């Protein structure tokens, strides 16, 4: 168990490699109760949130969500989140555990009259059920209910209990994220396990997301880096106005100073980890690794780092320094795991 954003979280249940494999080949269940949930609603909510988040809410229809970012005035990332449209001016937002209070304060500080924002984080238990067999798990625990399509959200009831299921995840596998009342959480966790999902901890969650190059806020995303530098321009609509957009427009025009690149070992070496230096092969320092792991699926070291953009091209030969030894590596196209 480790402390994580004020929660005691399991790094692993049976073993990280075993849990990682279960998600890639069958199905795993992660307790994501630490994550935050907000409900934003009332007249003017769409206009307000469209000015707070990078992605365009006008693209959403009822029952569909999108990945988005909330930035500071300098264009740096405060948090990455998923926002689901429940109805007209009615949204369900899932944010990172460590950022719940800061996100809420930032949104409230920019909230006009009209919209309401509720922090429901303490009321929900969240379970991420991920893996190719997730649909049979859902069918077993919620018979007769149809999972929403990719990025979709569905509110439904089982035996009178109000539930939410989202067709999203953080592993790159087919999966869903399930939210129930906190006091019912243990029951649903056990039901998922009985239906065939293997309990998985934070360790496998990290190795699975890194194989897909999904960013982790606090490691790969920071208030000092823009989404363009993080390679997330696909979820930034620069044709609309939002907090931080000016910096993004300037970077788009002038070029971004750094780029978050995917780095893969070309030879065997000690696992890459957060904080290790990455260099050109001649020893020129480029930066430090944000995230790194020995990929359980690929069997080699994979990592992400911000490097000066002119050195960020795919195919650039680099090296990672581990305890004084340089391990040869190369910048590759994201993600590491091609699905």
């Amino acid at each position, binding site marked *: 168990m480790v402390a994580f954003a004020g929660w005691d979280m399991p790094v692993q249940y049976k*073993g990280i490699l075993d849990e*990682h494999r279960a998600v890639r080949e069958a199905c795993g269940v992660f307790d994501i109760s630490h994550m935050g949930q907000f409900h934003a609603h009332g007249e003017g909510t769409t206009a307000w949130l469209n000015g707070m988040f990078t992605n365009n809410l006008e693209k959403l229809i009822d029952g569909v969500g999108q990945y988005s970012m909330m930035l500071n005035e300098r264009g740096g990332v405060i948090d990455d989140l998923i926002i689901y449209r429940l109805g007209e001016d009615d949204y369900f937002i899932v944010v990172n555990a460590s950022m719940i209070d800061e996100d809420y304060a930032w949104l409230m500080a920019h909230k006009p009259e009209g919209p309401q924002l509720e922090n429901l984080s303490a009321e929900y238990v969240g379970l991420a059920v991920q893996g190719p067999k997730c649909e049979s798990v859902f069918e077993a625990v919620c018979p007769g209910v149809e999972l929403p399509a990719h990025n979709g959200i569905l509110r439904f009831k089982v035996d009178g209990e109000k539930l939410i299921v989202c067709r999203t995840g953080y592993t790159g596998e087919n999966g869903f994220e399930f939210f129930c009342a906190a006091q019912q959480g243990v029951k649903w966790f056990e039901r998922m396990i009985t239906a065939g999902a293997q309990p998985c901890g934070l360790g496998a969650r990290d190795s699975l997301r890194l194989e897909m190059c999904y960013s982790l806020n606090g490691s790969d995303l920071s208030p000092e880096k823009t989404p363009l530098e993080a390679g997330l321009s696909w979820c930034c609509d620069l044709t609309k106005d939002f907090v931080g957009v000016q910096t993004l427009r300037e970077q788009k025009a002038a070029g971004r100073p750094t780029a978050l690149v995917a780095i893969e070992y070309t030879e065997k070496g000690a696992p890459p980890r957060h904080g290790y230096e990455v260099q050109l092969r001649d020893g020129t320092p480029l930066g430090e690794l944000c995230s790194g792991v*020995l990929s359980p699926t690929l069997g080699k070291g994979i990592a992400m780092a911000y490097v000066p953009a002119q050195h960020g091209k795919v195919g650039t030969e680099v090296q990672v320094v581990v305890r004084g030894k340089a391990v040869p590596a190369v910048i590759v196209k994201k993600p590491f795991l091609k699905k």
Partner: protein
Amino acid sequence: MSTIPSDFKYSAEHEWVSPAADGVVTLGITDFAQSELGDVVYVDLPEVGNTYAAGDAIGAVESVKAASDVYTPVSGEVVEVNEELGNEPGTVNKDAFGAGWICKIKLSAPDEVDGLMDATAYGEFCK
């Protein structure tokens, strides 16, 4: 957890050394250490011919989540390393007191071994 071999000696950093044969001991990490680490995915071995003082870091054992230095509790020269761990680092998990050995050290100060814990003391230490 497997039983703690009664003829080995143990350090507070969870390394074991075998009884000396011709002045050479075998060194590894204990079963307790491997179970705390979880799945071992990489072992950084020392180089044959290097000499170390007791307490020096000689390599590292790494799981998916963490890197853990390996310290030698005895002084001497590395005369052999377990190359098999390069291909099968998980052997450290499966057989920490046997096939998962890390290196062999020719003792330069054989008395140091007497200062280490015996199996009973180490068993208590882990509680």
